[in-house]
C-alpha cells in the first residue's frame, strides 16, 4: 500500500560474489493492453535481508543503458560499489605536415551497482518474467488485463504451447492469443513434467536461473529467478 502499486510480486534473487544476495520485487499498477501491446506502470524494489526494501531508481537514457550493459562480471553485493566505464574519444584527423597529436584522454563514466541491478532486473522481467498459462488472462473491454476467474486447468501441461508470454503481443494479433514459448527460438526453454505431483517446470536456458511452475493438480502457477543475472551467451554451443 505504501509503495502505491496495485500488485507486488517477488521477481527473485540476484546472486552476488561476496555480499548478501539481492532480492528483487516488482510492483505493477494499471496493466493495460492498448493496440496489442502491454503497457503498465511498474516499479522495482530491492532488499538484501528481505525485511527492508528500497526503491530501485530506473536508468533511462540509451547511452547509459548501453554502457552499463557492457559491464561484465557478478554483482559484488555491496550497493555502494561503483564501476568505471572508459570510452575512447575519436582522435581528430591530423592536419597535413603536423605531427599526429596525442590521443585525447578517454571519457570515463561512473555507475553504481544499483544502476546495474536495475538493468539486470529489468531485462529479466522484460525477457522472461511474463510467462503464464495460456488463457488465464483476458483483455477486458476497457483494455485492462484481468485474470479469468473461470480459467480451467490446462489440457496439455506438458507442452510448451500451453505457456505464453504476456508481453509479446504480435502486431495485428488478437491480444487473447499470446505468443507461446514454443514460438521462441528453439531450445531456449526446457520443460519437465512430473506426473506424480502433476507439476510442470519450465526453465529458461537463455536466462539460467529462471523457472516457472504450473501445477495441474491445483491449477496454480508461479515463477522466480535465482541466478547471477546474465543471459547465457554460449547457448548456441550447448544444445
Amino acid at each position, binding site marked *: 500500500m505504501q509503495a502505491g502499486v496495485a500488485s507486488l510480486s517477488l521477481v527473485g534473487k540476484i*546472486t552476488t560474489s561476496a555480499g548478501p544476495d539481492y532480492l528483487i520485487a516488482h510492483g505493477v499498477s494499471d496493466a493495460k493492453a492498448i493496440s496489442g501491446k502491454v503497457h503498465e506502470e511498474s516499479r522495482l524494489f530491492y532488499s538484501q535481508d528481505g525485511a527492508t526494501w528500497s526503491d530501485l531508481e530506473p536508468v533511462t537514457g540509451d547511452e547509459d543503458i548501453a554502457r552499463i550493459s557492457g559491464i561484465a562480471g557478478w554483482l559484488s553485493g555491496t550497493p555502494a560499489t561503483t564501476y568505471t566505464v572508459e570510452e575512447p574519444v575519436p582522435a581528430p584527423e591530423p592536419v597535413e605536415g603536423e605531427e599526429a597529436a596525442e590521443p585525447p584522454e578517454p571519457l570515463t563514466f561512473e555507475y553504481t551497482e544499483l544502476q546495474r541491478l536495475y538493468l539486470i532486473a529489468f531485462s529479466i522481467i522484460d525477457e522472461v518474467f511474463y510467462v503464464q498459462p495460456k488463457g488465464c488472462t*483476458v483483455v477486458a473491454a476497457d483494455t485492462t488485463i484481468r485474470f479469468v476467474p473461470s480459467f480451467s486447468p490446462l489440457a496439455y501441461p506438458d507442452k510448451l504451447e500451453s505457456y505464453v508470454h504476456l508481453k509479446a503481443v504480435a502486431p495485428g494479433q488478437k491480444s487473447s492469443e499470446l505468443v507461446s514459448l514454443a514460438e521462441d527460438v528453439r531450445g531456449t526453454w526446457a520443460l519437465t513434467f512430473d506426473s506424480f505431483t502433476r507439476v510442470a517446470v519450465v526453465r529458461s536456458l537463455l536466462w539460467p536461473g529462471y523457472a516457472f511452475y504450473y501445477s495441474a493438480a491445483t491449477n496454480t502457477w508461479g515463477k522466480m529467478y535465482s541466478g*547471477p543475472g546474465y543471459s547465457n551467451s554460449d547457448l548456441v554451443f550447448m544444445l
Partner: protein
Amino acid sequence: MAEPAPEPAIEVAGTNAQDKVPAALAYLQKAASDAGGNVYDHITDVLSKLLQEKPDKPVDLFEYSVLTKKLALDVKETPVLLPTLKETHAATTASLFSAPEPPINPETGEPEAAEPEAAEPPNEYETENVMTDASLFEACGVGLSRSEMYRVMLAVKALGEDPVVKVATVRFFGKMLGTHADYYVFETTLKEPATPEEETPEGVVPTEVNSGVNAYTYFVTTRLGDKPVQLPDTTPAAIVCARQIKKFLTGDLDAHVSAYPLFPGREAMYLRAQIARIAASTVVCPVGFFQLEGDEGTSVAKTEEFAAPETYEDVASWCYRYPHVKAQGRVEAFVFPPPEPAEGEEPAEPEEPEVSPPMLTALTEAYDDVSGDYARLVPGEEGGAPWSVVTSSMVPGVKFKVGGVKSLLWPGAAAVALGNTFANVYVGYGIKNAPFVPVPPPPVAAEFDAALVESSELPTRPDAETMPTEEEG
C-alpha cells in the same frame, strides 16, 4: 395481502416499443470502451460465432464468451480429445511408498505369509540422514524441497536394499538438470565392485579402476522410483574432453554428445565425467572433520573428537574432501614409460608430473590450478576463492544458525552444516560458470605435394551387360 401493483413502465414500453428499438440499438452501438468496442458488435460477434460453429452446449459457451469476450471460443467440451497423461510414470514414483510385495510361493502360487519380525532387509548398507540434510538445505535455501527429498530418501532406500546391486554406502549426490529430463544422481560404493580387465592401447592414459576418479560408482535415474542405471567408469580422455566443451545434458543417457572436440562416448559418459569434475571440486567438509590417514596421506578417516567451529559461515572453515583431479584426468598422475633411447643418445628426461595439493586442502588455500576446475573464472575478475557463504538467518545473534558455502564456479553446489552434521548437494545444469572458449579447429591438412602426372592408361572398359541400354524409339 395486497397484490403488487402492475408496473406502469411495462405498459409504457409496450406502447412505444416500435419507437424504442432504434433508440436502444443506437445506445448499444455507441462506442463505450477505450478500445472502441461496443455492446452491439460484441453480441453480434458472439452470436455469429455460435451460429457458425453450433457447439453442443451453446448456452454455456455463450455465457462464457460474453463474460470474457473470448471469441476464439476454445471448445473444451469434447473429453475424447483430452490427452491422457502418462500416469504409469506416476505409478513408478508411487511404488516407492508401498511396502514390498511378499514373495510368492512357487508351489501354491499364493503369497507367502508375511512375518514382520523375520523381514530382514535384503542388503545392509550405510547412508546419510537424508531428511536431516533436507532440513539443513531448506534452512539455507539450497538443494531440493523437503517433499522431493522425501522421495529421494525412499529412492536411496530402494537402491540400498537392492539385493542385486549390493551397495555398501549410498549418498544422494544431487540433481543434474537437463533440457528434457533431470537426473537424480546417487553416489555409491559397491560391495563387489567389478574389475574390468581392459587392455589400454599404447599411448593412451589408462583409466583408474575403483580408485581415484572412479573411487565411487554413480547411479542415475530420471524418475524417482525407476531402477537407477549404473554409469560407466570415467576415463581420462572423457574428463579432458569434457573440460573443453560446454553442453547441456538432454536427459537421455544414449544421446550423442555433439561437440568439438569429439567426445569419447555418449551422454552417460559425459554425465559421468561432469560428475567426476563436480565431485572433486565441490564436495567439501568442515576443516578438522576428517584427518589424513596412512603414510602417504592418500586416504582420510573421521576425526574421533571433532570440535565443531562456532560458525560455518566462513569459507576458511571448509576443505575439499575428495582428491584433486589433475589436468590429465586422473587423481594419480600417470607417467608414460620413457622410450628406449637409441644408441649413443642420452635417455630422455621423464616429464614432471603435475603435483596436486594434499588432500583436505582448505578452500581458501591458493594453488596453481592447471585444470581450471577449481580456480575462479568470473568474467572481469580474477583470483579469489570461488565460494560464497550461505546462512539460515541474516538476523545477527541468532543461535543454532545453519551455515555453509556455495560454489560460484559450479553454480548449484552447496555444503551446509550445523553442529556435527554436514551435507553436500548439487542441483544444477552440470556446467561450469566460465565463459566458453571454443577449441580452434585442427590445422588444415597439407596439400597433396606429389606432382600431378597425366596417366597414360585408359580407364577400364565397363562391362557391356551392366551398361544401361538406350531405349529404342
